[in-house]
């Protein structure tokens, strides 16, 4: 036993979750920006990648690169096995009932567009309605607007209160016989609000309305069980979950996926082709036309395994501590207003400062090595709801520390000094 007195931070992380050790898994964190150690607080935009992910992608290209599902040679077999193994890892991660319910897509945006263009086009007609909430990301607004425009349907929006919480009674009132689909974020990227998705799904299902959950922000921050939620679709991106860009998952219930027409046509999604008639492949391949993003899927698998090793419960606890600490520290600074104060909240701290535009905040924080996002966060309707043009947003990841939040706070003081 060491006799050296521990700092409060060391005591804080003295359990199994050793954030200082974890940081060593992320080579990118070890660098200076403008001569200051990088403090990366833009994890809601994208997360950094552990060595395990970088190595998996390199290993694939060095040793296993081959097309999948077609060759009989050794490399193709190896690549196919590795690729399909990730489907099982993802199934387990979401606790889906079957691997055929895991469709690989480019990311959350593509997943939502796919549902809009297949399930939506088949089931939403003239005069029907699609219901979303006021805190959605553009990627869970625009695909539905495109669909509604095409079909002569109407997009309805359930309101939020001044804390950024969904008004559940108002939401329920908007569920009518015209509602053909509900699409909601699990966790708001701009406000950090955790939507009551379980309640939302229960209310919608009581009226036989299917529900799509946009899980882009939630999956890296909490355990998701699609069977316990009973959602009909769940969309996520690998790159917000410590994996590579360009790969994500659409989870769908078998019954719904089977009834849906294919989206894109091409190789891999067919069972047989003649000029007279094409028989589509079975699930999940029906929705995976063309050679997929094999390398990044394998990288994604490594990311899921990495997160599993740390444990989402532990990550959730760590980030909850960071958010509480950051909220307390930042709201104590005079002239700051936090945007998004929901009781159920995770991962994201959006704020504005008196008379100082978020863009200026972002530039000055960057000069201190602190990376935050400034702008409307692809959620312009949320900005309009709070009557602000933009916010500065710090968003946390599994490798952030309390000391980094202290750096953020000192940098905010510098913003006030520079802008006078």
């Amino acid at each position, binding site marked *: 036993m060491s006799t050296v007195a521990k700092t409060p931070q060391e005591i804080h992380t003295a359990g199994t979750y050793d954030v200082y050790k974890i940081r060593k898994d992320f080579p990118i964190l070890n660098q200076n920006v403008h001569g200051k150690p990088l403090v990366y607080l833009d994890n809601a935009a994208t997360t950094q990648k552990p060595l395990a992910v970088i190595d998996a992608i390199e290993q694939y290209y060095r040793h296993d690169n081959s097309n999948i599902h077609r060759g009989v040679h050794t490399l193709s077999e190896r690549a196919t096995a590795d690729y399909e193994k990730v489907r099982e890892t993802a199934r387990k991660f979401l606790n889906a009932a079957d691997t055929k319910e895991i469709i690989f897509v480019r990311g959350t945006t593509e997943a939502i567009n796919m549902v809009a263009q297949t399930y939506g086009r088949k089931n939403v007609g003239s005069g029907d309605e699609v219901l979303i909430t006021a805190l959605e990301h553009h990627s869970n607004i625009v695909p539905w607007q495109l669909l509604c425009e095409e079909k002569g349907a109407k997009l309805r929006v359930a309101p939020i209160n001044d804390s950024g919480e969904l008004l559940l009674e108002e939401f329920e009132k908007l569920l009518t016989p015209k509602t053909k689909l509900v699409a909601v974020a699990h966790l708001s990227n701009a406000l950090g609000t955790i939507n009551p998705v379980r309640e939302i799904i229960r209310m919608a299902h009581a009226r036989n309305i299917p529900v799509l959950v946009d899980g882009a922000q939630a999956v890296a921050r909490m355990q998701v069980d699609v069977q316990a939620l009973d959602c009909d679709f769940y969309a996520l991106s690998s790159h917000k979950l410590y994996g590579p860009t360009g790969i994500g998952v659409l989870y769908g219930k078998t019954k719904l996926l089977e009834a849906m027409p294919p989206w894109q046509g091409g190789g891999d999604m067919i069972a047989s082709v003649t000029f007279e008639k094409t028989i589509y492949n079975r699930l999940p391949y029906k929705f995976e036309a063309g050679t997929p993003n094999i390398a990044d899927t394998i990288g994604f698998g490594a990311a899921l395994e990495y997160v599993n090793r740390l444990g989402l419960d532990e990550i959730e606890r760590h980030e909850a501590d960071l958010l509480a600490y950051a909220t307390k520290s930042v709201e104590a600074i005079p002239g700051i207003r936090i945007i998004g104060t929901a009781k159920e909240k995770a991962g994201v701290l959006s704020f504005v400062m008196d008379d100082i535009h*978020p863009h200026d905040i972002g530039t000055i924080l960057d000069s201190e090595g602190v990376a935050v996002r400034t702008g409307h966060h692809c959620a312009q309707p949320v900005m309009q709801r709070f009557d602000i043009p933009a916010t500065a947003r710090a968003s946390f990841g599994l490798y952030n520390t309390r000391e980094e939040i202290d750096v953020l706070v000192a940098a905010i003081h510098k913003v006030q000094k520079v802008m006078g």
Partner: protein
Amino acid sequence: MSELRELYQEVILEHSKKPRNFHALEPASHKAEGYNPLCGDHFTVYVNVKDGAISDIGFQGSGCAISKASASMMTQTLKGKTTEEAENVFTRFHDLVTGHAPGNGEDLGKLAVFAGVSEYPLRVKCATLAWHALRAALRGDQDAISTE
């Protein structure tokens, strides 16, 4: 800190807090909107042109310190100039903030304080937003211009 001070010079901060000609013109012979969807900066520039010269100019809207100060100083600089001269100043100002001005803005008078912007490529759009709107107004473009 020195680079930051280059960007956020006293003159710029002062103009961003107390913008000049910060009002609409009713009526205006020319008018256009400038919008940066990336950060939400949004200005409307109003101009009255008489005998080929800018007799009055004003702006309204909201944005960061750089965009607001730039709009404010633009109105000060261009009042009384011919539209041809205004186009010419636009070009030289653009060269200055993108780091392509040979004399570092000596010929631009007070506007030379924006030379520091060239160190921040992401902020060039802020510095030029009102200028793009002005040019659209003078050319009679009806749609809101966007710097994205």
